[in-house]
């Protein structure tokens, strides 16, 4: 039994969403990866990636949205993204001779302002994008699409 809300939106919205979800996701990934050259980076790009999945969930119904990106996967990716960020930062210490978050990859000056420059920054942007996207999607999913159990002492999901 699907309720009105879970069935998604009208035919026009569903068709346009099926076309657009790819480009939106690609745009978000572009913003994350080029974060060291153009404005954006992990935060803004992550929000756009999350928006792509949220659009799928809104337009095509909660079931389809959760099949693409389930709550468990989002939760694991959330923690894994930040753990990756910390590990990259810790690698900068060089085991007690460097500093946390030191940029230990150098790029020659002729490679500046290209995609593979900026040292560890693209990797950190990627980790942040992963975290922000999954966190935002998780928040959206839990607040709108999942039925919240109403018994006292039941599971409290943090953002």
């Amino acid at each position, binding site marked *: 039994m699907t309720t009105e809300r879970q069935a998604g939106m009208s035919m026009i919205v569903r068709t346009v969403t099926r076309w657009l979800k790819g480009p939106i996701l690609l745009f978000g990934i572009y913003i994350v990866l080029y974060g060291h050259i*153009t*404005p954006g980076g992990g*935060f803004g790009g992550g929000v756009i990636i999350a928006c792509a999945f949220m659009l799928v969930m809104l337009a095509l119904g909660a079931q389809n949205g959760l099949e693409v990106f389930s709550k468990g996967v989002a939760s694991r990716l959330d923690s894994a993204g930040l753990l990756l960020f910390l590990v990259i930062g810790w690698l900068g210490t060089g085991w007690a001779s460097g500093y946390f978050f030191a940029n230990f990859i150098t790029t020659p000056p002729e490679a*500046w*302002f290209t995609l593979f420059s900026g040292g560890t920054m693209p990797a950190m942007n990627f980790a942040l994008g992963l975290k*922000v996207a999954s966190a*935002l999607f998780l*928040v959206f999913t*839990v*607040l709108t699409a999942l039925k*919240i159990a*109403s018994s006292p002492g039941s599971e409290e*999901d*943090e*953002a």
Partner: protein
Amino acid sequence: MIYSLCLLLILVGLYGVVASRQTVKIVISLLIMQHGVHLLLLLIGYRDGGSPPIMDSGQAATTFAGLSVDPLPQALVLTSIVIGLGVLALMVALCVRLYERYGTFDVTEIRRLRG
């Protein structure tokens, strides 16, 4: 002059927090207040006739520093927006749970704790 507009926004948000009867309106007023504060922070970094703080590949660092607006407040505001997002998500979740427990969004009725 423009700083006073930021202050106005902050005061409007503050009024909303104090005077609202519904939890959701309190949340929205807090959001307005945070917008005002972010605007204030951004405006402090402004420079008359400045350019956006994005460096071109051909530009020297010194000309860039002489032309652009201050990028540090922009980074601060970005961080603060994300923090605000986290707090907003928590507040909305609390509003939803409060509605389940008390059956109302009205703050004057959610007053079991007193003394």
